[in-house]
């Protein structure tokens, strides 16, 4: 390769077919730019997806890609990654594909810690099948299949990932490329299953469902961007999250003059699973939405362990002709 690749080089010749205004466009653009920024090799990069709006993603990335079947992308990606651990593999899924029909595979790819990145586009609705409620839809969501409002308790994607044993959990917003790009880079660098929940706006079936915290004007008050070693401050540092030792819960406190000293504010420790649990399950109605790398606790990846424990570390050292003769062989004359 001669000149460094640009974001444009990561776009394919295919016409993008998402609805105008869909959050997927912004994520795609951010991903193409991130690919260029990190100097990704398209020949060595693979996007694997299941079924749904999000799963059309590979068709628009000028890398290798595999648009598979509903919910199973993690399993395809696991096989691919074991076959060739040198590949940089990205799984693209949604709240229906990843948490409903494919919940089992998402659980296992995370607990195994396969070295790949999982982008879960959460729009709290089924888009491609025209607007039915999903496992992340809020109680009472009215859709064609829940005319009286959905009665299923919604699932927290982040808490699910943590419960499954994820070693990397991050969150981002589709249209906030500035904050999403570094999360994508961190995920790519992580040796293990890096899980990223991206809040994605379905403009047709669930418009502005995340407006309470994604709105640019109120973002300072409604988002807390976590960073390892930094206090959990928001609202330009005028507010922070403090641990109440009596209730073992996080509380919002005013910081500075007339408020709590900054030393009272919890310092983000991305290796602390208990803190991660609290951040991932904060009620979004009353707390700011934690964004960024919430949990990161590196350990051996599945693919590394797989080949390290393989009898010959993946090398062909034996001959079938010899293997046939192992054990009791007799000669007939």
């Amino acid at each position: 390769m001669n000149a460094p690749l640009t974001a444009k080089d990561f776009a394919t010749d295919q016409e993008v077919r998402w609805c105008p205004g869909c959050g997927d466009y912004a994520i795609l653009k951010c991903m193409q730019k991130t690919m260029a920024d990190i100097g990704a090799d398209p020949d060595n990069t693979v996007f694997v997806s299941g079924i749904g709006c999000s799963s059309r993603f590979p068709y628009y990335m000028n890398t290798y890609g595999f648009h598979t079947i509903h919910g199973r992308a993690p399993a395809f990606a696991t096989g691919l990654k074991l076959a060739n651990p040198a590949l940089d593999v990205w799984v693209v899924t949604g709240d229906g594909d990843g948490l409903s029909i494919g919940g089992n595979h998402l659980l296992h790819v995370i607990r195994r810690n396969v070295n790949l990145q999982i982008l879960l586009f959460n729009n709290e609705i089924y888009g491609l099948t025209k607007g039915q409620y999903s496992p992340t839809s809020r109680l009472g969501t009215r859709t064609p299949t829940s005319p009286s409002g959905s009665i299923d308790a919604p699932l927290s994607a982040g808490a699910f990932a943590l419960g499954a044993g994820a070693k990397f959990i991050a969150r981002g917003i589709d249209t906030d490329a500035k904050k999403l790009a570094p999360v994508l880079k961190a995920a790519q660098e992580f040796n293990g299953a890096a899980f990223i929940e991206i809040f994605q706006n379905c403009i047709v079936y669930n418009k502005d469902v995340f407006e309470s915290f994604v709105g640019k004007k109120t973002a300072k008050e409604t988002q807390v961007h976590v960073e390892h070693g930094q206090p959990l401050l928001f609202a330009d540092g005028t507010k922070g999250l403090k641990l109440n030792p009596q209730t073992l819960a996080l509380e919002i406190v005013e910081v500075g003059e007339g408020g709590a000293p900054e030393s009272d504010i919890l310092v983000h420790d991305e290796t602390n699973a208990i803190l991660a649990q609290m951040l991932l399950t904060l009620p979004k109605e009353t707390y700011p939405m934690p964004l960024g790398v919430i949990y990161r606790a590196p350990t051996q990846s599945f693919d590394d362990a797989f080949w390290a424990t393989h009898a010959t570390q993946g090398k062909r050292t034996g001959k079938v002709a010899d293997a046939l003769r192992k054990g009791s062989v007799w000669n007939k004359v």
Partner: protein
Amino acid sequence: MGKITPENQSVVVRFAGDSGDGVQLLGAQFAESTALAGADFSTFPDFPAEIRAPVGTTFGVSAFQINLGARRISTAGDEPDVLVAFNPAALKVNLPLIRKGALIILNTDAFTARNFSKAHIAADQRETGELDDYQVVEIDMSTQTLEAVKPLGLSKSDAEQSKNFWALGAVLWMFGRSRTPIEDWTKKKFAKKPEILGGNLAALNAGHAFAETAELSAEIPQFVIGEAPMNAGEYRTITGAEALALGLAAAGELANRDIMFCSYPITPASPVLHHLARMGDLGVATFQAEDEIAACCAAIGASFGGKIGVTSSSGPGIALKTEAIGLAMSAELPLVIVNSQRGGPSTGLPTKTEQSDLYQAVYGRNADAPLPVIATAGPGDCFDAAIEATRIAVRHMTPVFLLTDGYIANAAGPWALPDMADFEPILSNTPPVINGDATSEPTAVKRAIWSRDPSSFGRPWTAPGMAGLAHRIGGLEKDIATGDISYDADNHQAMSELREKKIEAVADFIPDQDVIQGETKGPVAVVGWGSTHGAIWRAVNDVREQGYDVAQIHLRYLSPLPKNLGRLLSSYDKVILPEMNMGQCATLLRDKLGLEVIQLNKVSGQPFKISEIVDVIKKNYPGKKQAAE
């Protein structure tokens, strides 16, 4: 009783006892000694679905049957001539299976009121007259075993565990076999448990001595079974599962590509996974997935990555994999799907054998999704079948079904070791050479990737990591030339025809259907597929010796069928098709060849008896006895 030389030069022996009695070990070691004595044999373990069912119950009875002879042995035998029963439950379950007049050796120590009650036996079978038609030898095996190992100071329960070795010693004497190789094996096997080893060896010798002494009272007969005529060469004992595993490893070696075997445990398919897990040095890696679907998807992912993806299961698991198999077909990726068929439907009879997933393999997918289907005919044949399935998958870039069954998986017999030099290498379609990089003209890359071989219709096997060939595949219909998503009507028609044509093209690469026994035309042919091979072989052989003009034809290729099959089968007046299902291959032949066959359907979970096939041949033979004598 003295020495017996059986008229048909063969003897069928069945060992039966509790799941924990060590019946399988006893049978396997007796088979090993039979191999070393140069006789031909075929074995079949018949164990319950329960791991350790309650002691003494009928549903906890485990059995091992071996047919051994100084002639070609093709099945584990119709009716045992000898039954060794370790308890009343084993006798109760197995008595209906054995031939009238058979020799029954009983462990009398187990004939207690408690055991009768556990097996729901009203009265001691030895006193009801139900054994009158048999020769019964009663031995207090447990007592004899305890006596023999007493000097070693083992606990009573440990000591009694050795009674299978005691019985083995007695049986070795009955067949005039050397104890030395068994002793050597035992020493190796129990090297880390010296007390158990001592007990087993003492019991083995005591059983042998007992039988020898008992001969004086003419109680136990000795069978004389000579060497069977077999081609010169190296042999070993092999089960279907192990031969299949070795065959897959061999396929990888011939293709110079690693095997990625992705599976999920299921009876009776799991042994293939167990064997392959120990073949890492042969370019094999195994992945135990979270479920059947993931196993299939991971195998397809591996194939996409350039390794030979293989998945394996039994009927219920194959059902779960079906959607993924359709994707591999649509994406034109190689995949080998091994189905170790078992009794069905649903969970069915997990440990029993059946051939009832043929429809599933040939027809069982959404939409028009044709796939090649081949079947293996016996334990050793699994090796060749695995190579052939892989060869087709790689050549035509398609998933291939390899059908085996529970009988083949667990049955064993002597196997002449193949010479790897006799197999042609497995060649894949080479990836296109594109001079350029990611910024080069995309359509040229795509056209090269989807440029299919004009005779096999297999596309080049491109994998991520290859320079300049980045492309996207998936399950949406694709343009026939560029692979881009296409909803075009004419294109879908063309793609559907291409997929059909591709599978038909497999027939251009496979051999013509041969005739195993008999002439290429005549009054009757018996056609089979899969594990019925042995029973049909013996049945046809027997009636031919009686003067019947009957041919045997056995199908390896079920989809597509060999090109000459229709012509060949039409040259017989009658075609008989025995199969372990309600007529699935019969339907296939009617569908593909417009041919009506005489069906012999057996779905009892047990393999065919030779006599059942002989009977149907004779019943349907034109003029019946006319040709005979």
